[in-house]
């Protein structure tokens, strides 16, 4: 592709670097001026973003990607280092270098996405690295802009401050996670899913029940069930049982609807085969229909993993003991400890992703026969 050969990103990065170069060259040794503060690291950052224009398209692809990776991230690292102590004084040169480094990272990702490696390990690594670079750049831009523009800490703290906060308040975060996730979310999730599953089997046994429950279940899943949270808090008190109750109600219907749909998913041929084996209801259910329903059931489990977390945290807005993630978020917002709130959000995001990831891993192990997992 011609676009790749000429690499407009590297060219543009070079053009963006022209102005910072001029500023840098004329400002050497003049203190008190806008970035790059006449520092060595600032100059190196500028050099790093200007350099790739000479090499883009001339090297083997993997080498080019590696070099771009080093240039973009080295420049970002030096940039962040040079702004330390000068927060809020960044001039246009600073943002130009940041934009140039981002363009180089984009180019790096573009080169990497075009790779079609033939070894499995390499393609897995690539599949992880590409989104990782993207995520890293969200953090880099966030950090660079909040520091460079000197955005008030109360509005948006830089990621490094949030990270420091997480490291400093591990015990508090730990107790919140224990209260919200290990008690409310997990118990509610297990009970809600089991209840949905059992009712789905029951509905499968009794066609009348199924015909009545399915339209209702479909409608209920569109309703703002989260609204029952205040009622549950009133009934079950401030501690975790009320949150678990909200989670149960929220997870019940997706499980019910998906399991009923999944139980209808096995083909006629297979069911006929089971009939010719004189297999009764329960053997057919266990050996054919439940395995065939597994993709649907796991779909519900995945949807529910996010719903459960949301339900528990929101329910805590309506009253909690003095521990829990929702409680911490709402009180720390009031006390303007925004970095603590972001730390709590980061932990919640991590917990949500891990929860989802574990369910997805179990799904791969259980539905190993499914085409989407076999990849064939």
């Amino acid at each position, binding site marked *: 592709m011609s676009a790749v050969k000429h690499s407009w990103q590297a060219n543009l990065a070079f053009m963006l670097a022209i102005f910072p170069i001029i500023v840098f060259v004329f400002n050497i040794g003049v203190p008190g001026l806008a970035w790059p503060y006449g520092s060595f690291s600032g100059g190196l950052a500028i050099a790093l973003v200007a350099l790739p224009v000479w090499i883009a398209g001339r090297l083997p692809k993997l080498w080019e990607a590696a070099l771009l990776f080093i240039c973009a991230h080295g420049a970002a690292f030096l940039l962040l280092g040079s702004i330390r102590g000068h927060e809020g004084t960044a001039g246009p040169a600073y943002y130009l270098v940041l934009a140039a480094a981002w363009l180089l990272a*984009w180019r790096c*990702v*573009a080169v*990497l*996405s*075009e790779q079609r490696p033939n070894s499995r390990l390499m393609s897995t690594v690539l*599949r992880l690295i*590409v*989104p990782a*670079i*993207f*995520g890293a750049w*969200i953090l880099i831009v966030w950090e660079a802009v909040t520091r460079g523009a000197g955005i008030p800490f*109360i*509005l*948006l703290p830089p990621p490094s401050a949030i990270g420091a906060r997480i490291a400093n308040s591990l015990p508090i975060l730990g107790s919140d996670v224990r209260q919200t996730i290990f008690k409310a979310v997990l118990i509610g999730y297990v009970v809600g899913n089991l209840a949905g599953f059992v009712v789905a089997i029951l509905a499968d046994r009794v066609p*009348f*029940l199924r*015909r*009545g*429950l399915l*339209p*209702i279940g479909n*409608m209920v*899943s*569109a*309703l*703002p069930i*989260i*609204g*029952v*949270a*205040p*009622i549950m808090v*009133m*009934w079950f008190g401030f501690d975790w049982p009320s949150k678990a109750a909200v989670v149960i109600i929220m997870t019940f219907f997706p499980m019910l609807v998906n399991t009923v749909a999944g139980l209808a998913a096995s083909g006629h041929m297979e069911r006929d085969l089971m009939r010719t084996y004189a297999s009764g209801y329960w053997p057919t259910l266990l050996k054919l229909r439940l395995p065939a329903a597994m993709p649907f059931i796991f779909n519900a489990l995945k949807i529910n*993993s*996010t719903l459960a*977390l*949301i339900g528990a*945290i*929101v329910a805590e*807005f*309506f009253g909690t003991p003095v521990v829990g*993630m*929702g409680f911490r*978020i*709402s009180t720390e*917002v009031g006390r303007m400890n*925004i970095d603590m*709130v*972001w730390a*709590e*959000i980061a932990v*919640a*995001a991590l917990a*949500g*992703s891990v*929860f*989802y990831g574990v369910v997805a891993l179990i799904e791969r192990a259980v539905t190993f026969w499914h085409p989407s997992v076999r990849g064939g």
Partner: protein
Amino acid sequence: MDSFRSKIIPVSAILAGVVVLWYVFAVILNAPFQRDLDRRANETPGTVEFIGKTLSQPKPTLPAPHQVAVNFFENTFLRSVTSNRSLVYNAWVTLSSTLLGFAFGTALGILIAVGIVHVATLERSLMPWIIASQTIPILAVAPMIIVVLAAIGITGLIPKALISTYLSFFPVAVGMVKGLRSPEFMHLDLMHTYNASASQTFWKLRVPASVPFLFTSMKVAVAASLVGAIVGELPTGAVAGIGAKLLAGAYYSQTIDIWSALVAGSIVAALLVMVVGIAGRLVDRAMGGRPA
């Protein structure tokens, strides 16, 4: 008549069962408090009278269906729609931010989907983060967003709408990626033989093919958008809206108010999903779709 037999009878039978169960639980759950009241008043009511009393408490643990219905009717039809106790007014406040957020979210979702379908780099780098973004309990972030935006002078509709946007862009983005990719290879090849440009292929083949996917995912998105708007009202201490009604009811133990606000929210949700469904069917017919 077939749908009457196979659908309406079972559904109404189960709904009737739910109402009966509701009354039974209302009596059971409200009984302890009523017994307490009677003991203090030195009364010994008969069974029927006792049951009647449990179903007419002013602040019951579980209000009976007819109490909720009466409260809902009063607050919907008997109050002027400008009164801040009117459910119509509160539903309108929530609905307006729902719709704004839904519009933003749909636009954002379509934009992301178009980007993902056309730019390979975006697909590789953005798609995993879009999926990861939904594992973040955004509703937990809602108070943050509102406080931060209020600090830079944006208040009112927009912050709530942004939460709705976050919740509703995801289904649209995923659905539209699927929809824009739904044309078969044969059709794409045909466009190729016509010497169609990328934009012609997009407008004349990919967009029409994606319309059914768009409306299916918009139904999910509009429901999510309403949840976002309701939750967005909780942390702000909003003065109006269904979420504010829920919060006020929780503070003053006005259980009947909570339940009727829930009913109002459910009706709004059902209406929204229905409107999107009807719009989808109209567009489908206008584009020449035939009933299957």
